[in-house]
Every structure is written in C-alpha cells, then in structure tokens.
C-alpha cells in the first residue's frame, strides 16, 4: 500500500521534471525559461523526495531525505531569483508577443 503511494509520488515528480526540461527548450525568452526551470524543478524534486521517504520508512535515511527536501525548497528558488535579478540588472528586456524568439 505504502509502496503504491510512493510510486505515485515518484511518477508525479518525474512528470514535472520532464515538463521543466521541455519548457527549458521550447519557451522563447530568458525569463520564461527561468520560470519553467525554477518552478517545475523544485516541485518535481520535492515530490520525488517525498516518494523516496515513503518508500524508505522510519529510518535515519528518511530524516536525511527530509532535510534535503526542506533545504532544496528554500535554496532552489533563491538561486533562480538571484540569477534573474542579475540578468535584469544587466539590462535584458522581457519578450513581448509578436517578437522573434531569442
């Protein structure tokens, strides 16, 4: 029973990771790519780690995985925000509808 729930969580996480990678290729601008990368990666990673915790059970490894998930939920959007802020300070204009993709 618990393995089935863990399997569902792992598949949801894999789906979000694949969607983030496809968005990184398909989207037309730097800001939209940062949107896809920052959100989909964080959510997919959290879902997969929750699945691994449910598969593992109550051990020390589960505690380490929980700490890793909490750290990533804080650190990954912060890193993407810092990169986007630096790019905005360098003067990159956002993409408008009808322009050429770059």
């Amino acid at each position, binding site marked *: 029973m618990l*393995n089935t729930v863990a*399997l569902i969580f*792992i598949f949801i*996480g*894999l789906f979000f*990771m*694949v969607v*983030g*990678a*496809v968005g*990184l*290729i398909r989207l037309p601008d*730097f800001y939209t*790519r*940062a949107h896809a*990368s920052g959100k989909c*990666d*964080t959510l997919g*990673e959290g879902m*997969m*780690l929750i699945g*691994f915790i449910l*598969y593992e059970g109550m051990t*020390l*490894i589960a505690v*380490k*995985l929980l*700490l*890793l998930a909490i*750290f*990533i939920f804080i*650190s*990954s959007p*912060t*890193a*993407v925000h*810092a*990169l986007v*802020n*630096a*790019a905005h*300070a*360098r003067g*990159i204009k956002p993409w408008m509808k009808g322009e050429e993709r*770059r």
Partner: protein
Amino acid sequence: MIDIFHASAIILVLTIFLCLYRVIAGPGVENRLIAVNTVGTKTIILLVIIGFIYGRPLFIDISIIYAMINFIAALAIAKYLRRGCLC
C-alpha cells in the same frame, strides 16, 4: 521497485541531455546558467536514486553536499554577473 528506480534514472538522464542542448545553444550567459542550475538539481535526485539502487546510504550524504555546493555556486556566479567582480 528496483526496476522503477532504473527506469526513473534513465528518464532523468534523458532530461539532463535535453537541458544540455540549452547549455550548448543558448544565446548569452544567462540561459546557460539557468540550464546548468537545472542540471545540478536533477543530479541531486540522480545521486539519491543511485544510492537506493546499489544499497549504499552514503550517496545521500554526497547529494546533500552537492545541493549546498550548487546553491553557493549559483549565488557566486549571480554576484559576479551583477558587479563584475567577486568583492
């Protein structure tokens, strides 16, 4: 369950190759940096999966260290892009 881990590891490696396309072809520095950051966050999950497949819990400690190094590297590169130096 081990087969599921093998399949998810293979799918993760394929998504890493999709991100490497953006690393090679992306215009400008920022697109490459976002793609490298994404590859790093996928590598953390890949290390955890390798630890489960081979039955070695030490890989989870390695993945924690990798997450910290990835975060510090992204912040340092962002500061360098913004100011032109690491001061």
